[in-house]
């Protein structure tokens, strides 16, 4: 299958890109999720706004203890980065599960978040890290938290004229350990269930992959762990959030694995 015809623009600045966004346009970043959909003709944008030449969106920096990820940062860059490995190991743990190396060469953090597949690894890890999503249009700028950004299956709060420009990740609390666990039928396949865990003396975050239409924080499980419950009990509480019995059991097992690996 080949995509139907479309208009193509390749702006070189954020402002030029923003000026092109409307309800008929779709942003092309890594293309690893969008182009397959276009090849199958499931997505048929009238105009493709290719942001791969917007240098200003490709950066990965730590400033004031906070990690700032430009939307065009490739998965492979996050995977290799020492800054990420030192300060936000969960991102490296998660990104290693994204597709295959070839996918990670092109795929971007911004694209993965804007695509909002609930079985995607980065949105789940970023949800566990309390990331904030910087969104811009020609006329405005706003910042959203994960719950405000990821709305539903393949749906975010991005309006037609908005672009996700940066994902900002606060520093992990002192003494935090992290882990990421998922299950897919074959390596690199779409995951069926998974969990991202952050465990620190006074802070716990557990985010579930594939449990709902968006990444889901397991609040009860987090509270239980902080109150002294063990990983098994917390995992059961997390699994209880999943409707389907089989998937709930799988989620429970993966949460437990992640919590134990993170030293809970």
């Amino acid at each position: 299958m080949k995509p139907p015809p479309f208009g193509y623009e390749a702006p070189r600045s954020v402002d030029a890109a923003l000026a092109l966004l409307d309800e008929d346009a779709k942003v092309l970043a890594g293309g690893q999720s969008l182009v397959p959909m276009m090849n199958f003709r499931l997505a048929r944008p009238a105009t493709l706004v290719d942001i791969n030449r917007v240098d200003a969106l490709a950066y990965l920096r730590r400033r004031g203890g906070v990690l700032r990820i430009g939307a065009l940062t490739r998965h492979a860059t996050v995977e290799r980065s020492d800054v990420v490995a030192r300060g936000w190991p969960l991102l490296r743990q998660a990104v290693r599960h994204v597709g295959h190396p070839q996918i990670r060469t092109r795929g971007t953090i911004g694209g993965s978040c804007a695509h909002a597949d609930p079985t995607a690894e980065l949105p789940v890890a970023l949800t566990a890290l309390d990331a904030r999503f910087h969104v811009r249009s020609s006329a405005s700028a706003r910042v959203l938290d994960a719950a405000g950004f990821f709305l539903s299956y393949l749906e975010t709060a991005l309006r037609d004229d908005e672009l996700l420009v940066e994902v900002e990740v606060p520093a992990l609390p002192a003494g935090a350990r992290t882990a990421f666990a998922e299950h897919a039928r074959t390596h690199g396949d779409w995951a069926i269930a998974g969990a991202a865990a952050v465990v620190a003396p006074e802070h716990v975050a557990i985010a579930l992959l594939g449990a709902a239409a968006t990444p889901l924080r397991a609040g009860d499980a987090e509270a239980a762990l902080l109150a002294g419950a063990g990983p098994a009990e917390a995992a059961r509480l997390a699994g209880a959030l999943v409707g389907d019995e089989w998937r709930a059991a799988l989620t429970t097992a993966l949460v437990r694995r992640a919590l134990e690996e993170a030293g809970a």
Partner: protein
Amino acid sequence: MRISVDVNGRRYDEDVEPRMLLSDFLRHGLGLTGTHVGCEHGVCGACTIQLDDAPVRSCLMFAVQADGRSVRTVEGMSDGDLHPLQRAFHEHHALQCGFCTPGFLMSLEPFVRDRPGATDEEIREALAGNLCRCTGYEGIVAAVRQAARDRS
């Protein structure tokens, strides 16, 4: 749209529709049929080429995106002599029908360079982005081990 792409060290200036996939551009536009098309949705890896020296699915890129960039296909691997990885594939029977082979070569060349000490498990993980229906992968893993030894 007019694009200018460096493929295997040679520059090509061509007119393409935006919707032309890079894989189709290489095969039909430039006659470089070494790059194969399997699934056209990024799963099988047969279409893998190198864009600026990094392995990329050419079925998930449009030719217009390669404007001004440097592409390498399997045709560019040998300079008259087989590339060491190609030779290792040959010696270890890592191909039968050969359909998946170009994609494997393009994907594995950087891996062999960067991870010469990889364990078998790590090699198999690196293979996960390329599907082979013929060989059962044993010969490919053996070829990668050989190429890692040959590299230095």
